[in-house]
């Protein structure tokens, strides 16, 4: 570990020092005497596995939580934050991992929420609001329109609204908690430009991400947390991914397994024709037992919606499919579950989890029948299923019935995964299965997906991450402009061919 104080002359003065911060939650020490300095005009990345305490540290800095121990010095003054609002007024803004807009309000209202301009009569000055919004949007270089309703925008755009907020508030310390998790590569690039611009203006930036290439690209320094303890700070231009990973997980990660060619079995699902209103016009696709079908495309191409039609969550006027060769009609998710289809949704908080319930209760939801004993739910069976998948997926949870609300993002994702695996489906559809999941767990999930396929499960993986598609797919299709533009067997899979798929017209 290089000492950070000597090698940092080229960065500006210290914006924030975190001194010996500890934070305890019931049953877990989330932060253990963490100290770190953030300089003005630098992008300081924070790395660590799921549950390492990154989000907790950020929430302490942004006034969401109070530390049990230690203090924060911001621009030379010791601060004692009691609320996020107070932090915001001081110039510290946290852009949350989970989007937190008011969905019914317009983009402009969301950006200036809490600081709306008023006219002399005490009413909202709409003209000024829209003008200032346009300025902020222009400054950030986003494609947003001030009067759109935030909740109707795609996730990527909603994220931009959150970032625009920081620009509008002229914050001097901006914290990004996994900002690119739901952005396409082009959008991520736009985000980086914004970040660089913030940085040039002397803003200190804390940046959390599980995507190491991104961290190497954008950050100046990177600090690593493991199990709530500070592991050290590295100068980004002197390290590579492996060095960061090693510090994160305390060991070196084996290279991703290059999967041997699979021997797909019979067709499990074949779709002769499927139309997704507003997205996809008469596509066809099929997936075989033991095969992983990658589905690549840009965010908003309609891949998730396609999965929803297959799963019976969304109506389609024109769909004809066969399940193990026999024509079927799936008109509700319960039909799909009964046939043996599982869908790990893209958005785990909204569609995947009951946050107030425990891990075990969440996992058994689709197949309660399997844990019943004379009509009553058997807690023992539930606990057994939970323990089984906790071990297989290495889930860090407090117990089978402790609410999953406070689990880290990656662990929540593993619960959703366990939920569907416990139904033993013939076909598992995974929509962005490793979003917000750390490198170690990601490798774990990838290995697991490969194993499931090897054991004969048919799998569809929807992903916007090219490396994921390249690593996993036996065959991949590219969806663009409402059509399947490419169908690529493993031998023809490459970045080049995938990009062709989304640029062809």
């Amino acid at each position, binding site marked *: 570990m290089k000492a950070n104080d000597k090698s940092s002359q080229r960065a500006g003065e210290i914006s924030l020092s975190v001194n010996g911060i500890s934070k305890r939650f019931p049953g877990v020490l989330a932060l253990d005497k963490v100290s770190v300095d953030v300089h003005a005009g630098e992008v300081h990345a924070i790395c660590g596995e799921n549950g390492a305490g990154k989000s907790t540290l950020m929430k302490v800095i942004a006034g969401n939580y109070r530390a049990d121990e230690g203090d924060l010095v911001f621009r030379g003054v010791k601060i004692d934050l009691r609320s996020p609002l107070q932090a915001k007024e001081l110039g510290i803004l946290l852009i949350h991992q989970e989007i937190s807009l008011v969905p019914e309000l317009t983009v402009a209202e969301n950006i200036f929420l809490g600081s709306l301009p008023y006219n002399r009569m005490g009413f909202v000055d709409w003209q000024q609001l829209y003008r200032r919004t346009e300025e902020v949007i222009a400054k950030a270089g986003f494609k947003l329109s001030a009067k759109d309703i935030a909740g109707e925008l795609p996730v990527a755009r909603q994220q931009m609204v959150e970032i625009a907020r920081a620009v509008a508030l002229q914050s001097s310390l901006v914290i990004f908690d996994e900002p690119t998790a739901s952005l396409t590569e082009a959008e991520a690039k736009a985000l980086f430009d914004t970040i660089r611009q913030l940085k040039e203006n002397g803003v200190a930036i804390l940046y959390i991400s599980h995507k190491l290439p991104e961290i190497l690209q954008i950050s100046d320094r990177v600090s690593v947390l493991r199990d709530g303890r500070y592991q050290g700070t590295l100068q980004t231009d002197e390290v590579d991914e492996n060095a960061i990973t090693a510090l994160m997980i305390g060991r070196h990660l084996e290279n991703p397994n290059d999967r041997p060619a699979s021997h797909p079995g019979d067709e499990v699902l074949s779709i002769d024709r499927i139309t997704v209103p507003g997205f996809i016009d008469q596509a066809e696709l099929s997936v075989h037992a033991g095969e992983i079908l990658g589905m690549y495309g840009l965010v908003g191409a309609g891949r998730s919606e396609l999965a929803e039609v297959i799963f019976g969550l969304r109506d389609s006027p024109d769909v004809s499919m066969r399940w193990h060769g026999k024509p079927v009609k799936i008109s509700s998710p319960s039909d799909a579950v009964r046939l043996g289809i599982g869908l790990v949704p893209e958005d785990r908080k909204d*569609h995947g989890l009951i946050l107030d319930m425990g891990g075990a209760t969440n996992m058994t939801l689709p197949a309660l029948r399997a844990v019943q004993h004379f009509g009553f739910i058997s807690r023992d069976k539930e606990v057994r299923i939970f323990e089984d998948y906790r071990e297989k997926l290495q889930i860090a949870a407090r117990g089978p019935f402790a609410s999953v609300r406070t689990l880290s993002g990656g662990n929540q994702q593993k619960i959703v995964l366990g939920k569907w695996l416990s139904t033993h489906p013939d076909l598992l559809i995974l929509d962005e299965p490793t979003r917000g999941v750390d490198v170690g767990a990601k490798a774990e999930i990838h290995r697991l997906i490969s194993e499931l396929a090897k054991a004969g499960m048919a799998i569809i993986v929807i992903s916007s991450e090219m490396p994921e598609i390249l690593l996993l797919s036996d065959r991949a299709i590219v969806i663009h402009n409402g059509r399947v533009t490419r169908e690529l067997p493993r031998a023809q899979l490459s970045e080049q061919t995938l990009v062709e798929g989304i640029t062809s017209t």
Partner: protein
Amino acid sequence: MMSQVSAHETHMMPFAKVINVAKRNPIWLVLVVLIALFSFQTPYFLTVFNLSNILYQAALIGFLAVGLTPVLINGNVDLSVGAMVALSACLAVSLQHIGFVPALVIAVLACTCLGLLNGIIVEYTGVNSFIVTLAAMLGVRGLAFLYAGDTSLSSPTSDLMELGMMAVGPLSATAIVFVIFVVVFQIMLSRTAHGRNTYAIGGNRAACENAGVHVRRNVIVNFAVSGTMAGIAGVSMAAQLGAATPSYGAEYELWAIIAIVLGGTSLQGGRGTMIGTFGAVLALAALRNGLNLIQVSGFYVLVILGLTLIIALVLDRQFNRE
């Protein structure tokens, strides 16, 4: 980590354990305090006769609260149960000529059907249950008046009265049936798939749909069950009084909802227990009864009930804040 937590729990002093239970169900603490308070005030309070009387008085609102709890855990509400009490009571009394049992069955089933209708409308139109059952509350009350006119119906035979007076020792049959329902519903909620899904739907409906849970069926069944319990409450009321008027059960839905919320069920859905509802129903009945015994005037009783309500809810928030 789990072992840490459970070890911590098992090593707790008995006293700390009691505190812990009380924190989770503050309403039972309130109940104990009320009983202690009234026992000091009047010798008539803590007697077997009076306590079983409280249970008897609690039973009517209790039936409604028991049936409504799953509806609230689902994230819905049913405001029409008070009116159903009236309809059921009127039917039970006026149909005595076709036979004792058939009259009761028809009275209860009528309310089951109304509950079913509520559920179907809520699920298939997507209109908020508050609005749907607010309309039903007016409509059903109207039905009761249409059916019975603006009069009091009385039973031609004494069968109903006898049912109302049935007792085992000091305990009335009504009270016993109430306690049995509490137990059955508690088991239903905590141990069956239907109960589990009831919580899950209140917690996150979209996730339940994604998991293939029969969301609509669950919600509709809970409304039908709530209607059935209202029907039973109506029959019991007719039996207790040997008569019926179409104005029976007014505001009962409010008292039932108050009890449920006091018992720790979240109005947003997803959380709640039958034990909590039970405790709250008893606490409200004990408070009314005790205030009557120490001869507080009826108007003060309402004011005091209102105050208690606020205090209990504030305490609950203090204890169970996230």
